[in-house]
């Protein structure tokens, strides 16, 4: 017989917002996760934009270095990169501070998380954006160049708007990866949603209830972002002829 009690029906009040419920802790964790995901995604897009233009228009040495960056980051597990970068970045910053005669600082978890996940996201974003830039018809760029348009204006007016349509699906995927990768920061003890959930579950022993609740929160986040990105894609494709006409 399936015993509902065993699956934690009686532990549902533990999800209440105010103590003794742990709802506030979970929501604070979710807020931290979203902050890190937004920061990492933004940083990743910036790195990716630079990386994509570098890979396509940069010099041979820059191209080789970028190839090494994207290959290594995409071959090593995020969990390992997080550990390496987390220790290395904190260490490097503190060494720098000490050599300039300042005291050591404790780097905030949010900043470290954004930096680490941003570097990881940047490698994937480089590939996504490179493909998107390649999808822009060469004639458009050549036409702009032949009219004497300077490179930055060309990027802003021609390349970026035209590549958006091709870039949005890949970027949407990356955003979903970013939200899920924040969970990995639980391993370095940062209080994002998964770590907050484990803490709550460990204290109350209601593991099933809390992990299910966190799963629902993540799922809502990804469903809402899927909807938003579908809208953005429709906007980016405005003015494109629809298929099948």
């Amino acid at each position, binding site marked *: 017989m399936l015993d509902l009690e*065993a699956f934690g029906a009686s532990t549902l009040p533990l999800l209440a917002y105010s103590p003794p419920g742990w709802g506030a802790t979970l929501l604070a964790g979710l807020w931290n996760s979203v902050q890190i995901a937004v920061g990492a995604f933004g940083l990743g897009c910036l790195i990716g934009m630079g990386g994509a233009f570098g890979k396509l228009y940069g010099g041979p040495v820059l191209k080789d270095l970028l190839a090494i960056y994207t290959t290594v980051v995409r*071959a090593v*597990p995020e969990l*390992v990169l997080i550990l390496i970068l987390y220790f290395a970045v904190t260490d490097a910053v503190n060494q720098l501070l000490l050599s300039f005669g300042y005291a050591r600082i404790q780097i905030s978890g949010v900043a470290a998380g954004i930096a680490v996940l941003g570097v990881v996201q940047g490698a994937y974003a480089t590939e996504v954006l490179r493909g998107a830039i390649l999808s822009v018809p060469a004639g458009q760029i050549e036409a702009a160049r032949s009219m004497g348009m300077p490179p930055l204006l060309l990027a802003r007016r021609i390349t970026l708007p035209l590549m958006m349509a091709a870039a949005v699906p890949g970027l949407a995927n990356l955003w979903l990866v970013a939200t899920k990768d924040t969970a990995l920061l639980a391993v370095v003890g940062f209080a994002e949603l998964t770590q907050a959930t*484990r803490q709550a579950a460990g204290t109350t022993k209601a*593991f099933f209830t809390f992990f299910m609740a966190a799963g629902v929160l993540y*799922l809502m986040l*990804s469903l809402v972002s899927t909807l938003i990105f579908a809208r953005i894609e429709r906007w980016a494709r405005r003015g494109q002829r629809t298929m099948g006409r």
Partner: protein
Amino acid sequence: MLKELMIPRRLALIAIVLALAIWSAYALRWDWLANPKYQALIWTGVRNTFWILIVTMVIGMTLAIPLGLAQAVGPWYLAAPARIFCSIIRGTPLLLQLWLLYYGVGTFFPSIPWIRDSSLWPILRQAWPYAVVALSLSVAGYEGEVMRGAFKGVPHGQLEAAKAMGMPRFTLFRRIWLPQALHRVLPTLGGETVLQLKATPLVATITVIDIYAVAGRVRQDTFIVYEPLLLLALVYMAITGLIVLLFRWFESRFPSRVA
């Protein structure tokens, strides 16, 4: 391949990498590698990582085929659950799924008498079954979506031709539909296997001894911060290289016509 490397700037780059490697070999601490205890642990870890990767990929792909088929051509009562399953797996972090299974479901088993008395109990008490189930379901969820596209992508004429020849439905699936769908996903499958490899270190968080767990153990024992992590990165890069080569070989064995 070799010719591409013999350009001055690449030679310089190789020299820099070699110099870095030699510097780290001398300047960093690698004496723990000589310890037979850690050597044995490292081999166990690598073996377990490979084992988990292969087993979960095989189970996951086996589950992904019906999931993809149900979504592509199944009736709504099969398609809808398959789609919901894929959305849930793809919409939540694997770490959370793993912990839900291990801490959540795993803690209920001892309270149910017939499970504790069954002969399966010695297995269910260990951590690795939960790791295998969680990682396999994850593969199934992601690949189910990929297989859906692959099944839909097989040209209709092929299936109609087989039907017109009076081929039974199961033979049609086995001989025509599945091989062509698998052929289509082969290029993606290599990338997905690398992604799965990168998911395997998560099992260390539920006490399965893979190579990541071994590195953590060494770091705890010896207080060496970076070196085990560097070794870890090297091992994963080597395995990634192996996977890429393997799939390149697979693809060359089943070449597709380039239009």
